């Protein structure tokens, strides 16, 4: 009797256990990660094939599947900033295990299978977790194995000393010389924290003839020399946050080249980032243990006036409100008008806006004005609650007039650029209106000298000229 019951149970339980990982992957994962594991849309989404995130310790990938992943993540030399939605509430342990077992053994991946018990244990350990993981959190808990680089026979030399620029290494004697078998440039190879220089020399194996891009960043100074030619240099001192990074191109032949990297640490933080991108490669490969921050490898998308007409940009602009309307005038003069506060809020010179923050991926990055001499004209609303934004009109040259309705009257706020100044014309209909005028440092407003309020009367427009000092 017991035996018969047992066999009945087996026949019911077995089909439920036999989850088909490949089929589940196709159903739930392939749209983003690609049926071939290379990431959908030619790699616009993170690949799983060959990804170190997938291999090794399965905890990393189980956690990503259960709770999702938030924020930027580097995979095989490319930074992605998408949101992996959490699947834990939808997929039971056996399905997560089947999918990950499939992923870890497909497209050349050769990692071991994942059991439902492993998933169950990890799920239970993080039962209270509500947020998605970040890449940083996961890497701290489950570091990735280091990837091999294109460098062989890499020798590092360390030279203690105080310099304010890269020294002439030919006159120096190294304190220590080591071979770096991992082929990775790392300041952790130095025993010093401050006041030292380093030199790396090795063979750089290039896969093809053609044009190569190099990205170098350092805290403080560094230069890359290939076959005796200076390729790219970061000079002076400062942080390694992308603000000083340099990109250069060089045409190189397939095969082995002599690589030489010189580096100087003055004081404080230290580090070096060196990336390269071969002909046709879409992503950076790194020769250093540190990699450039996500923002630095995007090509800028300048938004600029065309055909002598101003350009309008309506997306979020950092430093003003969500309903800001940006206007880039010819001649490098720019305005952000707040349709929430019903007033101009920012003016600046030079480049108008860069589209990369909002026009790529999900548009999660902050987008400050791209130029210089930023001046804040207002930060709050001065008109009563019933005042409403009614839109804008463009004149024949594309210059805007913003329209505000206050009960039965209208306030019209027109802007154009002329001879290095922004010209603002204020018009009111109905009855008289007081308009506060901010007079911040950085610009002069000739017509409003000494005034903080402009008295506007119907039929008597007021013109204000904003000129940078």
């Amino acid at each position, binding site marked *: 009797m017991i035996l018969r019951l047992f066999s009945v149970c087996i026949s019911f339980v077995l089909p439920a256990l036999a989850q088909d990982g490949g089929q589940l992957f196709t159903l739930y994962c392939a*749209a983003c990660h690609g049926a071939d594991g290379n990431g959908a849309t030619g790699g616009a989404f993170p690949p799983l094939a060959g990804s170190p995130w997938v291999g090794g310790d399965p905890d990393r990938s189980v956690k990503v599947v259960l709770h999702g992943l938030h924020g930027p993540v580097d995979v095989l030399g490319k930074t992605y900033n*998408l949101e992996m939605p959490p699947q834990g509430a939808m997929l039971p342990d056996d399905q997560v295990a089947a999918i990950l077992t499939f992923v870890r053994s497909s497209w050349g991946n050769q990692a071991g299978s994942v059991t439902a018990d492993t998933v169950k244990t990890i799920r239970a350990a993080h039962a209270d977790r509500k947020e998605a993981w970040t890449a940083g959190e996961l890497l701290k808990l489950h570091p990735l194995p280091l990837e091999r680089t294109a460098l062989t026979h890499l020798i590092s030399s360390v030279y203690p000393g105080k310099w304010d620029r890269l020294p002439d290494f030919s006159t120096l004697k190294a304190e220590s010389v080591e071979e770096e078998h991992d082929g990775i440039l790392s300041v952790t190879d130095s025993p010093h924290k401050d006041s030292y220089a380093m030199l790396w020399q090795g063979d750089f194996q290039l896969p093809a003839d053609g044009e190569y891009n190099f990205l170098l960043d350092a805290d403080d100074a560094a230069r890359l020399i290939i076959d005796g030619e200076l390729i790219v240099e970061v000079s002076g001192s400062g942080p390694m946050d992308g603000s000083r990074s340099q990109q250069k191109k060089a045409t190189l032949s397939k095969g082995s080249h002599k690589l030489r990297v010189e580096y100087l640490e003055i004081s404080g933080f230290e580090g070096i980032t060196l990336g390269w991108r071969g002909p046709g490669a879409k992503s950076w490969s790194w020769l250093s243990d540190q990699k450039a921050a996500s923002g630095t490898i995007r090509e800028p998308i300048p938004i600029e006036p065309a055909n002598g007409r101003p350009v309008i940009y309506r997306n979020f602009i950092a430093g003003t409100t969500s309903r800001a309307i940006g206007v880039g005038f010819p001649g490098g003069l720019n305005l952000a008008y707040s349709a929430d506060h019903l007033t101009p809020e920012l003016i600046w010179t030079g480049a108008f806006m860069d589209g990369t923050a909002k026009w790529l991926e999900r548009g999660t990055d902050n987008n400050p004005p791209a130029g210089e001499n930023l001046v804040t004209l207002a930060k709050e609303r001065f008109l009563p609650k019933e005042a409403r934004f009614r839109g804008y009109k463009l004149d024949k040259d594309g210059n805007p007039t913003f329209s505000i309705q206050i009960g039965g009257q209208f306030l019209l706020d027109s802007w154009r650029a002329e001879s290095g100044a922004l010209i603002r014309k204020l018009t009111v209909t109905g009855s008289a209106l007081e308009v506060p005028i901010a007079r911040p440092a950085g610009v002069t407003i000739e017509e409003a000298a000494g005034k903080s309020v402009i008295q506007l009367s119907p039929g008597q427009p007021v013109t204000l000229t904003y000129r940078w000092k």
Partner: protein
Amino acid sequence: MRLLLSILFTATLTRAAAQSDFYLREEIPLPPGEVMEIGSIALMPEQKIAVTTRRGDLWICSGAYSEDLGKVTWKKFAQGLHEPFGMFWKAGWLYLTQRPEVTRLKDSTGGGLADTFETINSDWGINGDYHEYAFGSDPDKNGDIWVVLCLTGSAGAASDWRGWCVRVTPDGKMIPTCSGIRSPGGIGFNSSGDVFYTDNQGPWNGSSALKWLKPGSFQGNPTGNKFAKLANFPSPPDVADKSRILAERIKHPTFIPPAVVFPHGKVGQSPTGIVCDQSNGKFGPWKNQLYVGEQTHSQVQRVALEQVNGIYQGAVFPFLDGFEAGLIPVRLDQEAGLLFVGGSNRGWASRGSKPFTFERVKWKGRTPFEIQTMTANNDGFTITFTEPVDPSTAGNPAVYTMEAWTYILQSDYGSPEVDKVTPRITAANVSSDRKSVRLKVDGLVRGHVHHLTAKGVTAAAGQALWHSDAYYTLNEIPR
């Protein structure tokens, strides 16, 4: 010889039907070098079509109806818009639902560029979060535009009226209308003028669905409930976590259940734009049915709705497939019988591997053998087919299978399929005109999605079904 012929004949008949047998899908050439991530499509006079892009451009296309798509031309009409999702043309104006406002624009001087941008209403909150999308409808019979407002980050309510549907009247008033929304992908009307939107799987939304925006209703996600007090409305239901939609809507009558659930993964993963077929058969025999875009799987699904006990419900059928990017807007020219779709896969991947697309679909005039409609009875379902069936297959209950399930209503992201049952099909009675079959089903479950497969059904002329799956959401069992 006769044997050979009959084998050939059978082989022809049993060849699987393909989309290209019935529908011609064509890519409409886009202006070279431009990033055309299309978010809305409007039909204009003289067979011109306006499209907006996620980067905020508005382009007008000529030649999208012509036989030779090589003659398509484009003109940029406006730029600097804020990611519009919803646009229509009316009396010389293009009306847009932009992220921060409802706007209408036109070229007032004949210069060829839009120069007048009138803000009709901007009374909802936005705070700069990437996910606070706004999708707007065409005008309803009163001229109102219905706008569905995505939650902050798709899970929070950091700005006023997130998670609500509002109506914007022609004179610029905003009327909060429904609560309980999560992350919409599109909004449209059925043939009676009732308004529906699509909502995506996530917190408080076990699977994506087509939902009925009955004024005053709650749609299931309580995150935005707090905004009711801004207008002194009664608070929407405080639904219980880890519950079921049916249980909660019995407790809270304003909770209108999803009209048609699109089971996650099985029928797409991210439904988007909605359009009703009122072309009188110019796009196939789908009169008054809805076509729903699908972003992740790059598809168009077909939906047949009915109202039972005052609640909308019905079936979703797989329909068109293989689009080049993730679809967002869908637009049917009811006169020409042409379906226009556009899309983008920026930020959210799609099976279609291009970054953006603009396509049209034309019916070739050949009717596919398909399940046309599926309607609920007290004791089962009536399945209507597009062609007469072979009673020897369609009348055999054993050619059908049925499975039914529901989802957990929970604050966690999505839900597994739960409470699974296998209703038994006990009879299949073919109608006298052989166009429909009445299935007697033992074990219908109120509130469950009922998945019917009809793989073995053949037409009187011998062919197999193009699609054999239907997913019916049985909110109500007819009395």
